[in-house]
């Protein structure tokens, strides 16, 4: 029998993943006004990086078959390192899929396609290198932690507690940075108006890179966490999360950081409330919710309405 608390916990931990995912989209969207379709692939790579860094061996089906790093890092170290590797990758994606278009002043819509191309390349590169099989991060990674904790009578997987704690930490750090630091304020200025920001002495290109770097870092960490809590279900496993993250992003309001968090938690909780015998309809529930919100509040829950002029 699932208690209310358990449902709440499941919902929150799934919701936290969606929120982190959506925040990665949000950062890029707020500075460039486009969605980075390679985000899901970067998330996936973060999961694989984590797996490799904790000393996992590559299966038999890729070019790198049997590869194993000569060292095995503890999960606490492997996760942020995977985040950093993912951030580097996100910067590369920015360099090849976004900047050339910006330099030429092309239609921003094209970045949807170029970033999709980058995503296709990354996903298939993973498949080529490490094969299509699923990998799981062993439970022993977490040291002597018990598999489940008992909180107020409810059994909660300790993985979920860790996931929630790290997600909370990342979200807090991110909002502190955006609202409290000079570079965070500069990012807000660029998202308001890149040209004016440039005139005021802010290096817009640099801020765009920072947005991509942080978004990649978040995606990499989230990938590692999901890999730990569920498993890495093959090179395509980021796509489902990517799609959900997109829904969360719009539900909360494009470009709004609190909106992304709220949207993630709402969709996570809504999915957790779907009874087990209707679980097939889980995805329909979240997208149905998104659809309804769009119709009532087209700018999303916490988004600002756009005004248009000729």
């Amino acid at each position, binding site marked *: 029998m699932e208690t209310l608390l358990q449902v709440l916990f499941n919902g929150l931990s799934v919701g936290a993943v969606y929120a982190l995912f959506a925040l990665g989209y949000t950062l890029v969207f707020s500075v460039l006004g*486009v*969605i980075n*379709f390679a985000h899901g692939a970067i998330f996936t790579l973060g999961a694989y990086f984590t797996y490799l860094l904790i000393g996992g061996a590559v299966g038999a089906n890729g070019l790198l078959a049997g590869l194993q790093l000569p060292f095995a890092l503890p999960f606490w170290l492997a996760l942020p390192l995977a985040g950093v590797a993912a951030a580097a990758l996100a910067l590369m994606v920015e360099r*090849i*899929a976004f900047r*050339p*278009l910006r330099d*030429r002043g*092309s*239609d921003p*819509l*094209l970045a*949807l*396609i*170029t970033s*999709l*191309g*980058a*995503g*296709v*390349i990354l996903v*298939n*590169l993973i*498949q*080529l290198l490490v094969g299509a099989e699923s990998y799981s991060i062993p439970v022993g990674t977490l040291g002597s932690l018990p598999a489940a904790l008992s909180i107020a009578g409810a059994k909660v997987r300790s993985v979920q507690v860790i996931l929630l704690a790290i997600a909370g930490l990342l979200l807090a750090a991110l909002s502190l940075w955006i609202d409290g630091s000079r570079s965070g304020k500069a990012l807000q200025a660029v998202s308001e108006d890149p040209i004016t920001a440039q005139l005021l002495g802010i290096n817009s290109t640099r801020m765009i890179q920072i947005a991509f770097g942080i978004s990649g870092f978040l995606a990499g960490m989230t990938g590692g966490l999901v890999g730990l809590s569920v498993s890495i279900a093959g090179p395509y496993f980021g*796509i489902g999360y990517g*799609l959900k993250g*997109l*829904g969360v*992003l*719009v539900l909360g309001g*494009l470009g709004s950081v609190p909106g992304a968090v709220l949207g993630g938690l709402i969709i996570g909780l809504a999915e957790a409330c779907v009874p087990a015998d209707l679980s*097939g*309809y*889980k*995805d*329909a529930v979240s*997208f*149905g919710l*998104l*659809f309804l919100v*769009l*119709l009532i509040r*087209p*700018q999303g829950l916490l988004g600002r309405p*756009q005004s*248009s*002029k*000729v």
Partner: protein
Amino acid sequence: MDAGLLEQMLLGALLGLSVYLPLRCGQLSLATPGFFAIGGTVAALLSTREPALAGSGSTYPITSVLLEMAIAAMLTGVLAMGLGRVVLRLRGIYLAIATIALVEILRVVTLNLEFTGGALGIFGIPQPFDSAAGYASFTLALLALICWLCDRLEKTRPGRAMAAIRDDDLAAASQGINTADTKLLAFVLSALVAGITGVVAAHFFNSWNAKLGNFDASITTLAFVVFGGSRTWLGPVFGGLLLTALPELLRPVGDLRLIVFGVVILVGPLFFPQGVVTPELLKTLKRRIRLPPTPTAQGGKP
């Protein structure tokens, strides 16, 4: 060339046209795979469950296929009219994501319903043609018809209104164009093309399941249009034909083929920001082969 591949390319071109129609008036709708899936499901259900359509010959009668098309067109058309009224109030990326949500809801529902065969789908859809070549010629005729209609559309009042809305929504409205109705028209036409294409695809694939209309399909069909060009109907046709064929043509490079495909859609927009086929390119080509440019390309009818 392999007729099966040709048939797939032609279906790709039709889907490209379906994404192109709303994009022509600036509406980024990714609902095409959803309407495609509805068309396919209608064909699969009717042809496997309705004995009256089966006819007496050894192959499934073409008239039944045409009837399925009419039913699919009616269904998708009515649905698009209802949904369009609601979703077309959204703009830009919001519209894109709302339509992705629609496609996903539809996919999940099809996946879970009993009568659509669940995750396995519907098998043994009867064949109206003995060979892939038969399908290819039928689809080629269909594509030619729809291209001709698109060409007519581009040169008539509603088509011009679409182009005006694409350039500037508010300015078009201030010139007396009913923007809501014009957008709805484009959306419904897009749904019709996708639904009809779904009927042909269901027979050609011989089986039908929920996977055929998913998010990947939304994005791939969008790539057809952006790569081919969205300012004339030739663009999506070119993009659909080429990008459907590409992964198959690249089979010799084996595992690398999808990577090469990714490189093509990554690099394509950098070199062809307007898409490969643009009205300017067509004009240049016409001049090269010494044909006088058609007057309608410049001024148009009063």
